[in-house]
């Protein structure tokens, strides 16, 4: 996100600040370790996780605009660091780490963030957010409060888009076929935008939709919530 989708992080900061939160970005942070962990390289992932815990242990709340990275910290750090000297701190950090929409709705108790987005939008329920963090209705509650936004439900909104991290590279044929099915379900809604709680799903979908020259564009949830004035382009085509 830092490297490929900076706009998503910028928009997350915007939304949080608008609601009155002071936002810090510890600059020595890198990756939570998920790519290595998911590929079976737990010994390579562990020092990244320890690094994360060390950097974030003093934060009051850690908000992450990705259900997948949040899952890594909250669901997998306790297992990955079970025998590490960072175990206790990891559990504490895990309990204070939230995906953006769950932070807004469940922790801050906010559904109205003062956004305007006069477009049709369909929502893809990203797997990690849905099944690991049990985020069901939170993003929809936020979207329903956005002025001008019309939500259109897609069929199989809870079926995986096919990204899956290294899966997309190791099994690119399957990943692309799954992405194509998802893209067809997205297209069938006729919505202008598809949104989700995970930038990685959207990065993959954007690529699939782009290759098909489909009219639907991807936009991350925070980027919708950050909109106050006329809409911008899809997050990928953003010029900064």
């Amino acid at each position, binding site marked *: 996100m830092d490297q490929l989708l900076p706009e998503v992080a910028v928009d997350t900061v915007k939304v949080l600040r608008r609601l009155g939160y002071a936002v810090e970005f510890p600059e020595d942070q890198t990756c939570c370790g998920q790519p290595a962990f998911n590929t079976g390289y737990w010994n390579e992932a562990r020092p990244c996780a320890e690094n994360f815990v060390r950097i974030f242990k003093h934060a009051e709340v850690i908000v992450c605009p990705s259900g997948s990275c949040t899952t890594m910290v909250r669901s997998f750090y306790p297992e990955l660091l079970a025998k590490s000297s960072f175990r206790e701190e990891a559990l504490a950090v895990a309990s204070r780490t939230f995906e953006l929409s769950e932070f807004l709705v469940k922790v801050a108790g906010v559904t109205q963030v003062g956004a305007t987005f006069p477009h049709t939008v369909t929502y893809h329920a990203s797997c990690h957010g849905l099944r690991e963090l049990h985020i069901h209705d939170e993003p929809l509650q936020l979207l329903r409060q956005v002025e001008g936004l019309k939500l259109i439900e897609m069929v199989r909104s809870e079926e995986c888009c096919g990204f*899956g991290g290294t899966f997309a590279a190791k099994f*690119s044929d399957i990943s692309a076929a799954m992405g194509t099915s998802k893209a067809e379900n997205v297209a069938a809604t006729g919505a202008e935008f598809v949104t989700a709680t995970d930038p990685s799903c959207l990065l993959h979908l954007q690529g699939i939709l782009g290759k098909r020259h489909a009219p639907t564009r991807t936009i991350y949830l925070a980027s919708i919530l950050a909109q106050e004035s006329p809409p911008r382009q899809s997050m990928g085509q953003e010029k*900064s």
Partner: protein
Amino acid sequence: MSQTAAQRFLQDAAVKSADLVHREIIQRGMDSYDVAHLKGRARIKDWEAARQKCQEIKREAINHLDRYLLQFEEKVIARGGHVFWAANSEEACTYVKNVATRLGVRTVVKSKSMVTEEIHLSPVLEKAGIKVWETDLGEFIVQLRDEPPYHIVTPAMHLNRGQIAKLFREKLDPAIDSDDPVYLMGAARRILRQAFFAAEMGISGANFLVADAGVIAISTNEGNGRLCTSVPRIHVVVTGIEKVIPRLEDLAVLWPVLATSGTGQGITTYGTLIGGPRQPGEVDGAEEFHVVLVDNGRSQLLADAEQREVLHCIRCGACLNICPVFRHVGGHTYGTTYPGPIGSVLTPHLNGIKEFKHLSYASSLCGACTSVCPVKIDLHHHLLQNRRNATEAGATKSSERLIFRAWRWAMLHPRMYALGGWLMRKVLRILYDLGLAGSILDPMRVWNRYRSPVPLPSESFRARWRKGLGAN
């Protein structure tokens, strides 16, 4: 050199995932399953409580497998049945073959059983000159095609009725002139009825082995299971040791939950309990009754505390049905007896991690399987553990090990990470401006084969943060 299982998987997956006719057939089948499954679940007052109960029953059984199996054995023997403990496929097949040859069996009718697929029993019997009939309609169809079952519950779900009519015309009767399902079923039934009455031996599996009652429990829908187990003189049950459950009353929840997860039915059409050969005064039942308890790697899995619960599986097929990978690559691509998520978890244990580790990576880890498993097996986390085990066993590619070691180094050095990110974006932008996206020079060519290139912003978030965004 012949292809490895992993190479074959990749090749078949590429073909199947691009096969739109296949996708259409499977999608339609799964759509109707989804509707039935949700309707079935709604019939159960508290589905989560039912899953919880099933998990507890299976956990108790697996944790005391030794005791419950012995209890089951004792009851069966007391009623005049035979119990054979087979350590592996070979022992199991040899036992069944010897029973058949000793008693002069020439024809065998089988009801659906995945364990007999796992141990490859039919080829062993056929080699001994015995005719084997699959009598489950789906199994009968794939047997005619000389194929393994496509799915553990619905073996022929990859075929539409037109394909089945053509198959019947070629293999059964050239006069078959309709693809009406009832007509086709009638054609199969006429042939199978003759087989039932010719057979000296019936072979079945078991959905459960009930320890306290000493009976096997079978759930079927077509009635062929009852014919297989009661018409021939000899009944042989071939089943895995993990199928045992403690009490008869456990079926009160396991039977409906299995049916709901398998097909969306409240309960299957037939529920059969058999505890031995025909007793004096009884009107039906086999004269001889054998139970073959197959281990075949299960004890080893039992010893793995982290993944022992994989033995809870009741083979309902729900994880296959919901799996987006299965829906796109289909059952045969896996090249294993048990396809789908449960197969990807189980097969490395039963058939070797080296040859079958690729299946643990062939998942996006979406977790849909875990969310539907009626005995709450943490399937997608076991896939993660399998991946970790493969890495720790040194079974992964050395190039990949090197990449992740370099990756770790970069992630622990934020300046190098930032520099690397900047460099990568710069290089890719130059390449793409030259029109080289997807070419041999493009490190993202695998990605770009099916997708438009990733966005390449000129500044990272951390650069923008430093340039003023950071001021609260």
